[in-house]
């Protein structure tokens, strides 16, 4: 004796046009939401604040919610205070140069000064680059070790990677620097790239 089992299923129902469009809209809304979300995130992450210093002749856009400081021996410096550990920073320095000075001379001076003040300073690379406005510049990458200045705390020193972009223009050298924890340098670098593209001097 044999038994035959016959499955009786519900007959497929053709979706109505309205149902089809509903599904399509849900998918489209989801994609749109993702796109808008990504854009919103990007605009938040890459939001900038204008900076202008007519005395020095610099305009720039630095990341929103980074703390600005112009009390040091630089034109200005911005730091990401939310960063745990070493605070990622970008800063602009200007040094006067004479007509005989080359970018190479400026680099040597920088290396000499930093070597004398910081025994952990090391140069990683130097290369010529062209800025967004076709200005010829030189890029130097270096490292040093930073530590909390408070001697009473137990802070572990951080290896910092530093990139300096040096351009000579109008009797002065402008040095635009980016400093970041070496472990997060690549991750933070796009912000510096944007900063570099927007800076005008």
């Amino acid at each position: 004796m044999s038994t035959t089992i016959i499955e009786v299923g519900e007959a497929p129902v053709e979706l109505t046009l309205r149902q089809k469009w509903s599904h399509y809209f849900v998918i489209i809304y989801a994609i749109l939401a993702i796109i808008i979300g990504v854009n919103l995130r990007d605009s938040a992450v890459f939001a900038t604040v204008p900076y202008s210093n007519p005395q020095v002749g610099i305009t720039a856009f630095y990341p929103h919610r980074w703390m600005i400081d112009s009390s040091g021996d630089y034109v200005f410096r911005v730091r990401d205070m939310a960063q745990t550990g070493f605070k990622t920073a970008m800063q602009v320095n200007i040094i006067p140069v004479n007509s005989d000075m080359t970018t190479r001379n400026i680099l040597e001076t920088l290396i000499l000064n930093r070597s004398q003040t910081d025994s952990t300073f090391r140069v990683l690379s130097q290369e010529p680059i062209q800025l967004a406005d076709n200005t010829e510049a030189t890029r130097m990458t270096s490292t040093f070790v930073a530590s909390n200045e408070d001697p009473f705390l137990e802070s572990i020193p951080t290896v910092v990677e530093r990139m300096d972009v040096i351009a000579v223009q109008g009797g002065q050298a402008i040095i635009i620097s980016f400093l970041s924890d070496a472990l997060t340098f690549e991750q933070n670098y796009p912000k510096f790239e944007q900063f570099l593209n927007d800076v005008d001097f």
Partner: protein
Amino acid sequence: MMLTSKARLFATSWLMLVVLLITSGVPAAAQTSLDVERIQRATVLVMQTRIIGSSPIITCVGSGTIVSRDGLILTNAHHSLSGANCSGDTLIISLNIRPGEPPVARYQAEVVQANPGLDLALLRITRQVDGRLIDRASLALPFVEIGDSAGVGLDDTITVVGYPGIGNDPIVFERGTISGFAAEPSGGDRSWIKTSASITGTMSGGGAYNQNGLLIGIPTTAPLTPNPATGNCISVQDSNADGLINTNDVCIPTGGFINLLRPSAFVRPLLQAAQLDISISFPLERVISTTATIPTARPHFRYLGFSPSVNPAGMPTTIIRSLPTGSNSLYLFFDYENMTPETVYELRVNTNGIPNPNFSVSPVRWSGGSRGLWYVGSSGQPFPNGNYEFTLFIDGIAGDSARLVIGGGPDEGAAFSDIVFGLLDSAGNVTGTGFVLPTGNTASARFLYRNMTPGGSWAAIWYYEGQEVQRTDDGTVWAESDGASGTKTISIQSVNGLLPGSYRLELYIEGRLAAVSDFTLAGGQDGSFARIFNNTHFTTASTVQEALSAAPISSFSAGTSPIFAMFNWQLIGPGTLWRIEWSVDNQLFFSQTQPWSGAPTGSNFLMQIASPAGLPDGTYRLDLFVGQIQFDTAQFRVGIGQLPIDRFASAEGIALRGQVLNSVSRDGIQGVSVMLISEDYSVADFTRDWNQAQLIATATTDRNGRFEVNVPLQRGALYSIVLLAEGFLPITADGVEITDENHPDNSPIDITLELTPE
């Protein structure tokens, strides 16, 4: 404000918590006005080192105290400056990181101001211990404030703080009382504060604090030449690399026990100059015709005598043979020769054959010139009856002694006293009395006498630069017409004119020295007074030659440097002691006494006052002295003519510190930014502008989540706080206030905060 609504909700809830935590802050130290923790942290070990072979060898050790947040350290000169006994070239600064533990080397420092005679030095932290340069502005070290040493009195309780060993021991706090004051010409009746506290040699350079926690003195002793055989030094390193640590290795001087504190009043000029970063150079070219000679002969003392009091010129009022019962002041006078600022001298006093530390002076650096009359004594301190023996030591070797009996009634014998000098007017009166007279043919002295017997012998001997030049005739007797008591005037004369220089008058009764006093002849005559310096003026120039011909200027623009000062002088004898004082806004920051080594008369004595960052705004004054008399003064303004206000100059306030935890894992969070916003701004202001100028302090948490705000908080001020870390909701709080109600003492506030992961 750029916080999200969720963050804002959190912030609001945290605000109450933060305020609550702050208002209930747990005091970290006992409730006392002596801020033990701050003093501990500000007390450092100073090690002088030099490289021998490839190893750093410790050559000298002492204690020190941080006196400014940007790293100025007050200590002794003898273990800071390189010299015969301390031959190092690098100063290593060790901090007390944890209470009860030995100090840890953290920094290198350089000497920025020093006075070897006063044995004081100010060091500035310039590098990390590994040699990396330090930005002074980035330092925010705990420091103590200088108190008023003139305000302390006998039997006041003090606390002396320092390191008792050469680096293996933690800080010690020694309590004691002020047992007296020692007098010297360098600082008058309060040249030294004596204490009963038990202070070991390496605590020299540390701090002595009053009950309000202010530094009122620096425990000071100068170690003698290191000699392992005497046990006054310790060898701890194999400096000669022979595989053994023995007497052939570098021996670190440790000194003996200390009973003296150098009063903090001596520190202020050095501190002012160091804080202003001002240097003064003189003399510049073309002025000096001779150079000062450094004594090479063996230093010695002679002609010890006693006086119950000292006049304003530092001269004994009389010479005594005994002192009556109940006396409370006594000065030992003596001549000195060939002394240098590195000479160590000591006074040991025995009473009835028993050492008496109350009136002794432990070994200290010499703070006088190379030759002259000196005294050491004490006032305001009762002397018990007894037979006293005073013995002076130079570099540990006993020199002359003198004995004095204290007890019984006053000496009713014949006496001379209170010598003053001046010029005789036409009526025979002595005018222009003082101890600095103009050069001329005559100089006169007036003195008091009492209990003189007519017919008794007396003598007056005049000296010029140590050589006898005039004396009363042998056999001179006291005239009956002068009476037993009164005033007498005598003179020294020279038809060719008296030479400018240093003079002395000694008066004898029956062959016994009864009174002695030095005086100086200098300058031209201006009425009854001397005119020594004139035409003091200032200018600025890029070179010395330009300065000599530049027009005088009395008001300079802000940041000017260098500024040159010039003056003319007349008739100053070689070796005449003169003093330069510089003040800014009436605060003395430079005072130096030196022997004149130039031509007797000249013009444009040139000195330079400079600062690397330009002279700070202020009103600067130059005063020129001979003896205690100011002979010329002039001033100039820089910028607005007033010193800028340093809002961080005060150590007063309450320290804020704490720990930031992850609210979920309860672990400390590393790298959190703790930002303290100035009372002029709110969190909303700050998070709109994100401008560092609105902050008064920032701190970053360490690997345990601990942080310390390095600016002391003030009572009554309203602060705002922002805590920020990527991946966590921020904490903000406005209106944080410390009041007497919520925090009655000055102990640090220690708070725990929790950040919630986003």
